[in-house]
């Protein structure tokens, strides 16, 4: 890529020198000379009255990717099991595979992890790329990046999906820079463009105030991380044959670079808002940590979990793992009870997949009512205990 001067045409008028934003072209001995500060931006070309400047810069070309086949899912493990998001992605992969007529594969890394293959197959993996090594027994950035990058280069997939978990969000950008791949973060919806067969990646943007649909035209695999909980995971009816492709990793001890000294599990029972059928959520309107008590009682009566908005977590009334919204978790329970939540778009972004929504708020103009199936204007501290009581007495009967 370069800018060329035709010295027969150049009159040394200095127009190009004046317009260049980088001081990348200067007139020496009556002729324009391009220097090392030139960025090939091309501003000078149109300004030359003698048409003495030209460039070999072309529009970015899309390489031929017709040999790229297959939809891959990174098989993440958590607590000795396949992560729920991996199963969701295998389900999503099958939908995409149908449109493209390509196969769904899982990429499984670990040490002695053969026993996960059957589960991956049950959720829709037709192939499993399996790499086993001591250094892969727990997730570490560098060994995982190295092995997966090698598998991608050898096998040339079309699409690669990774769960937008702490592990996935550590791994995916690393691979994207190593292999120069476009990467879309935290997608909530994926589909195939029927015209060109490209992956349409939809994600919240601008703090959840907008949705954006993104394409990765210039690199393969088309890579995206996907939010947990935006798809339902489903076992397939009839698992077909599953091929296992063993990958010999060339890992060496030095590849670890970092060293995990210790894992400290949280003592308290892990909250899983993702699995909850009912979520009772509190916002600023609960007023205090004490004000959450009726929400816990209602959640217990309904067999659900308690969650909160960003404010509630920032105030310290609830721990961060109970936060729903753009910066928290995306949930899709059967029933979502929004108590004292005004309904900022950032919060609604995390709960709009709920099947039914109840909103209780003092302010009848609160936007949460627009996102609710049933709305009650009133004081949550009066209504929730009455509701809990009514549910418990129904159970009693």
């Amino acid at each position: 890529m370069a800018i060329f001067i035709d010295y027969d045409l150049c009159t040394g008028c200095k127009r190009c020198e004046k317009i260049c934003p980088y001081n990348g072209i200067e007139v020496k001995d009556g002729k324009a000379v391009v220097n090392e500060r030139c960025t090939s931006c091309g501003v000078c070309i149109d300004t030359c009255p003698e048409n003495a400047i030209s460039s070999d810069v072309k529009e970015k070309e899309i390489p031929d990717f017709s040999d790229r086949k297959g939809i891959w899912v990174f098989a993440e493990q958590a607590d000795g099991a396949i992560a729920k998001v991996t199963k969701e992605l295998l389900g999503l992969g099958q939908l995409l595979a149908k449109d493209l007529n390509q196969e769904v594969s899982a990429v499984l890394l670990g040490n002695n992890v053969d026993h996960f293959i059957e589960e991956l197959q049950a959720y829709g993996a037709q192939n499993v790329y399996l790499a086993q090594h001591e250094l892969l027994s727990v997730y570490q950035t560098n060994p995982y990046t190295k092995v997966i990058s090698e598998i991608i280069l050898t096998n040339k997939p079309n699409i690669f999906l990774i769960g937008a978990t702490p592990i996935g969000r550590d791994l995916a950008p690393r691979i994207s820079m190593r292999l120069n791949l476009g990467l879309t973060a935290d997608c909530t919806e994926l589909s195939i463009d029927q015209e060109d067969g490209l992956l349409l990646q939809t994600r919240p943007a601008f703090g959840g105030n907008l949705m954006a649909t993104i394409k990765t035209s210039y690199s393969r695999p088309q890579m995206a991380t996907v939010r947990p909980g935006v798809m339902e995971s489903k076992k397939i009816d009839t698992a077909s044959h599953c091929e296992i492709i063993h990958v010999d990793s060339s890992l060496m001890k030095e590849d670890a670079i970092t060293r995990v000294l210790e894992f400290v599990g949280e003592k308290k029972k892990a909250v899983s808002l993702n699995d909850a059928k009912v979520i009772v959520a509190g916002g600023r309107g609960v007023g205090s940590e004490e004000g959450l008590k009726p929400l816990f009682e209602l959640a217990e009566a309904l067999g659900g979990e308690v969650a909160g908005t960003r404010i509630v977590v920032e105030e310290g009334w609830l721990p961060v793992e109970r936060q729903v919204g753009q910066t928290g978790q995306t949930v899709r329970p059967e029933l979502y009870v929004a108590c004292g939540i005004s309904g900022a778009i950032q919060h609604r972004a995390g709960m709009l997949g709920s099947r039914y929504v109840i909103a209780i708020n003092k302010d009848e103009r609160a936007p949460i009512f627009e996102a609710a199936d049933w709305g009650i204007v009133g004081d949550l501290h009066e209504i929730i205990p009455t509701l809990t009581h009514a549910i418990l007495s129904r159970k009693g009967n």
Partner: protein
Amino acid sequence: LLERPGNTTRCEDNKRSVSRDFAMNIITLIKQVPDTTDIKTDPKTGNLIREGVESIINPDDRHAIEMAVSLKERYKGKSTVVSMGPPQAIDAISEALGMGIDEGILLTDRNFGGADTWATSFTLGKAIEKVDKYDLILCGRQAIDGDTAQIGPQVAEFLGLPQLTYVMDIEDIDDTKIIVKRALVNGYERVESPLPALITVIGQLNKPRYPRVDLLINACKENARITIWNAADLKVSVQEIGLAGSLTRVMKTFSPKIKREGEMLKGDKTEVVEQLIERLTGNHLI
């Protein structure tokens, strides 16, 4: 003098690390963002109202700045912030200098505009390569306008550095290695990494201090230690940066679909609860 509530960090609190005699040069990557939590939508058209939205230093990045300044206070060395953005992003750099950072570098160029995370990380990486030497690069976990959390790891890969993401505590640091706590879904892990390394931090790490008025005034003067670099300074071609260098393309944007046909239940508390119970049982929810 202003109160400085963020003057102690966890690193100092737990007394595990003692001051040693070595210089630590730290680069902190920051972004100026619109305060997206402050954005309202027009109730009639559903469009965003962008006017009057304040520009701030991305919240996670403030924690990174705080860490850089408190490390600088303990060790010798230089702290630098690097930011890519429009010319007005210099305000974010001035504020960082007000918090105690030594120097700022603003990467600004019309051709940087429209960059996706790959092109942004490439540009930041090129800028860091141009900076003398460094022991540690700090970033916020993610920016509130994009929420991608991709820049940190991509810059680390570009520079060939180890990365430690979601850092909630720095336990120990010396001239060759660092030990941190990384927040995970179900707990945390303690990890050791050689230096130089890149760290992305989360809000639990510390409490950012307020800028000091005297430092802030100096940072806004003409001779403030802020350097501005464009594409030519970084020796990059326009095909590698901004929209042209991006590997992803935004095809369309739209307002999220969030409306439901809400039914408002009316009456006193017993009446509304009765109606609600009716609907819950009708839909087999209880």
